[in-house]
């Protein structure tokens, strides 16, 4: 951990210098012992400022607590553990900020000698991707605002900013999933998982409902019924980013940025995935045109996180490839192909439902944030 102390001029310091100059002029103009006393107290303020703020800042130790992922449009609260190693000086009015996060800062009102506390820094991410945190900066102008003292620690960490997610109403999502030949076959509820699979020895704390009483009676040993695992409806998301941004720019209406359309497409994919997981569906993700790990169909929040992370890591500046990969047929899956610009029916097959990024406002309710 490297630490560096630096000083920054402050407006208060300028005002104070002018004040001292006025005092000196007054002493020369109309000498008076009381004026000299006032000048002495001004010198005292400089001494206090130098002593206290230097001792205060050098005794501080800041540790960034493990940051979580952020999401565009939602605040990320970063936590810092601030420890005052001084046995004498308390610390007051310290602001904590990250060099990579602009002007967002957290405030520490006070921390006593030998104590520690946690400071919150709220940051509103504006775009998805990965943010490299490098320097943690503690800054203070206490006690008089004469000079800003800043201590910088080099602490590297990465925050993944997940794409923006908009709320898609459940009826609209169901209508979307039921669309098309494949979608109509997708079950609306979990099913086909209640078949008898076998029996096995009962573990502790087994529910009485699962006990196979007859078999247990015949075996004289408590056994339970094991059923097949449930299968959930599936949604296959295909994000078609094979068209470079420059060529896309000529196809979008005037006043609309092509890059924004691509971001909207990513937002639509993230929103569909989030809403589908919330409804209990399994989702898979495949991205055309950009290097991205294909995510197999699965359910659950952790899988959703993995999908969103893949979407967050998409680098739209990377060179595009154009493999026309067709979506494998699955009678239990609904397929949705998302295009940033005009719909290309050749991607995803005939059974897929094609959505354009321009349809995002109509698809989502913009008033909410997350299902």
């Amino acid at each position, binding site marked *: 951990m490297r630490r560096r102390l630096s000083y920054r001029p402050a407006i208060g310091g300028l005002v104070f210098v002018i*004040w001292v100059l*006025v*005092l000196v002029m*007054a*002493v*020369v103009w*109309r*000498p*008076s*012992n*009381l*004026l*000299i*006393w*006032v*000048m*002495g*107290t001004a*010198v*005292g*303020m400089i*001494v*206090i400022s130098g*002593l*206290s703020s230097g001792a205060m800042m050098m005794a501080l130790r800041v*540790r960034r*607590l493990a940051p979580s992922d952020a999401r565009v449009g939602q*605040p990320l*609260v970063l*936590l810092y*553990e601030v420890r005052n190693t001084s*046995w004498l*000086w*308390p610390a*007051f*009015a*310290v*602001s904590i900020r990250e060099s990579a996060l602009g002007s967002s800062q*957290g*405030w*520490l*009102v*006070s*921390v*006593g*000698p*030998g*104590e*520690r*506390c*946690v400071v*919150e*820094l*709220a940051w*509103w991410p504006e775009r998805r991707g990965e943010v490299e945190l490098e320097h943690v900066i503690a800054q203070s*102008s*206490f*006690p*008089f*605002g004469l000079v800003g003292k800043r201590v910088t620690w080099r602490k590297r960490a990465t925050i993944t900013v997940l794409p923006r997610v908009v709320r898609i109403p459940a009826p609209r999502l169901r209508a979307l999933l039921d669309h098309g030949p494949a979608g109509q076959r997708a079950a609306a509820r979990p099913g086909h998982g209640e078949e008898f699979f076998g029996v096995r020895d009962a573990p502790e704390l087994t529910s009485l409902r699962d006990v196979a009483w007859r078999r247990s009676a015949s075996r004289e040993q408590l056994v339970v019924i094991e059923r097949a695992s449930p299968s959930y409806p599936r949604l296959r998301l295909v994000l078609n980013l094979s068209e470079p941004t420059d060529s896309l720019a000529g196809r979008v209406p005037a006043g609309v940025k092509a890059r924004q359309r691509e971001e909207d497409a990513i937002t639509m994919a993230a929103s569909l995935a989030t809403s589908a997981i919330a409804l209990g569906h399994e989702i898979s993700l495949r991205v055309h045109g950009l290097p991205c790990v294909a995510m197999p169909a699965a359910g659950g929040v952790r899988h959703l996180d993995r999908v969103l992370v893949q979407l967050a890591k998409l680098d739209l500046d990377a060179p595009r490839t154009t493999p026309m990969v067709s979506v494998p047929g699955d009678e239990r899956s609904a397929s949705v192909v998302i295009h940033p610009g005009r719909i290309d029916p050749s991607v995803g097959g005939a059974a897929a439902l094609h959505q354009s990024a321009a349809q995002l406002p109509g698809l989502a309710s913009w008033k909410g944030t997350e299902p």
Partner: protein
Amino acid sequence: MTMPRGMHALVLVTAMLSLAAFCIADGSFVFLSCSMVAAALSGVLAQGARPKRLPTIVAHTIIATICAAAAVVAFIAGRPPDIEHVGLLCGTALVVKLFARHRASDERHVLALGSILFLVAALDGTDVLAGLPLIVGSLLLPVCVSAAWVQSSTERAAAAHGSHRPVGSLPVSFEPTAGASPMRCWTGFAIASVIVTATCGVIVFVGFPRQGLEGEAWNRTRAGGFSLRVSLATDERIEDARTEVMTVRWIGPDSLSMEHNEPLHLRGAVFDRYDPISQSWQVPQHPRREYFEGVGAAFVPFVHEGIDPRLQVYKQVVQMRGLATNQVFSVLAPIAIQAADGMTVALDQSTMLLSSASSRIGEFDRYAVSVKPYASDRDMATLSGGTVEPGPMPTFPVDAVKPLALELWERWKPRGRSVPDFDAAALRPLARWERNRAVATALEAALLSGDFRYTTDLGSIVRRRGEDPIVNFLMSSRQGHCQYFASALCAMCQSMGVDARVVAGFIALEYDAAQLQYIVRSSNAHAWVEVRTGDAQWTTFDATPPATLQALQAEQRTWADGLRWLWDPLNFAWSRHVVSFDGEAQTELAERMASTREALSRPVRAVLDALEAIRQRLVETFSGMVGSLWLASIGVVLVATIVVMALLRARRRQTTPLVGRSASPRERELARHYMDALRVARRRGVVRDAGMTPLEVVARLSVESPEAAMHLRSVVESFYAVRFGGRPATAERCTAAARSLSALHRARTP
């Protein structure tokens, strides 16, 4: 008290101190009373339980309107506002802002206005009543600024906190639930900052070089109404304070205290030349000083022969009360002085002025002078060091005075007897002295005739640009204070070739018959004229109407004079140690410090010698193998003791954040067991991160060693039951925790 309430109270006190300092320095007592009432009211209204604050926009509008009105008034008057008006504006703005205090920035505005008021007070005030609030307020000012800074950070923290919290969520307190509160931390800081500020203030006050600043401006600060300069350039109101400067006991030839048959003119300074450029009188250029050493209770005569000390000799015993000066005030002509051993007195033989030559501040707090008020020409010549030459006839540098003097002389010259003319006076000294007396008497009578009016307020006098104030006094205004009367008389005398000089000092009018002494106040500062009426003889002529002086003295007498015995010593100490602390005082202080250091170094040297002797004895005692072993064992024991004490202290300090400073020994013991238990868990690889509860540590430890986790849980629960559960820290609980801790140490990993 919470941090915001403490800060509001402190800022209010500082603001009131700044208002008091300014108003007392400026003499604006009406504004003082109004602003104090308003400030106290603001504390109740704006910071009370149900605060009713003035909206910021309204407060700023009021302030802007007042400033605009002041600017218009200044424009109409045709002159820029002076420093007092600036102070009044700032004071008014401060009072308005007190009613609009809402955020930390408002507090900072109040403090900025208060600091301007302190500056104005420091420029104008020398009085102790203005100085004490200024000193206290200037010490509180850094404290208040730092408090406002903390409060500002609290507001910013609240704003940052509110930015990502839902609307309508509960307000967040930034006072930590554990550890030292901000108020407590800040109180320690505030005390330290007051100490540092006071130390720096004293160091700068004592060490600031004043040598280059001495002279006209610096003498202004000498309190007591007396000044070493008579200047007619200013049109300020002269000081009419009732501060007791000194008491004078007048002892007659029969050794009894008595009241003199005429007011005592206590001389402090003599001026014989007028400078028309600076419009002030200058001291004589070639003083002839003789130095005399004090010998305790006995009087030291200035001459040993030629003066009969038994004939018409009076004694004046002076007790200084409110004026710190090296001047020795005495009636003409002093012939002997009683001063303490080692004190040196200088007598200027040309002016008969006495002063302290050893430059000690306020050395002459009490002194006695033997004087001959009716000294003969021979006595004066003896005191002056022998024969005094008549010298050339004087002239006055302002030509316009002479026609006026001649006009008055023609009107008031004695009828029925002849007065030597100028030429005769130039040839014969006796005729010169006779003419001097006659001319001075006539001109004094002219000034006392009633055509000239005494006033202390010169603000209404209109003077043309470049017009000399003496000419203005004689021709047009015909009003002024004693310095104008004395200057006019002296100027007219000198313009007619009469040897005259202006004398400044005090006139003793108020005789306390109960205490048998004169009481001299700062309003008794006076100026008069001495005219040469012999080779070494100078006669006092006072052109100021005595009836007016008596009337003024009677007018200024109030019921508060009865309390002056309480007030004047404080004022005297203030005047002596603060107001008149100048370059000479700095030199003296440096000398005293050097002598003190010398005095202090003697016992230090003695201690060092004693230590050296002890060392020699130890070397002799512990020489050889056995002695070395003894010495080594003692050293080891000492070091071990120090280490143990340091460890105990460190452990105590570690437990303080957990249980507070006021915890009982058993609570501390439990906290130590708790910390030791967590330390053992850390040694076993379970590190407690910030935000991790102890029971989470237990859960993680149970993965490695369920037995250890069980003992850790026991210790944690014991500590938490006392710390947060309100259970008593009994001996059984401590013993159980200690047992669990030792079991935790022994617990094995499966």
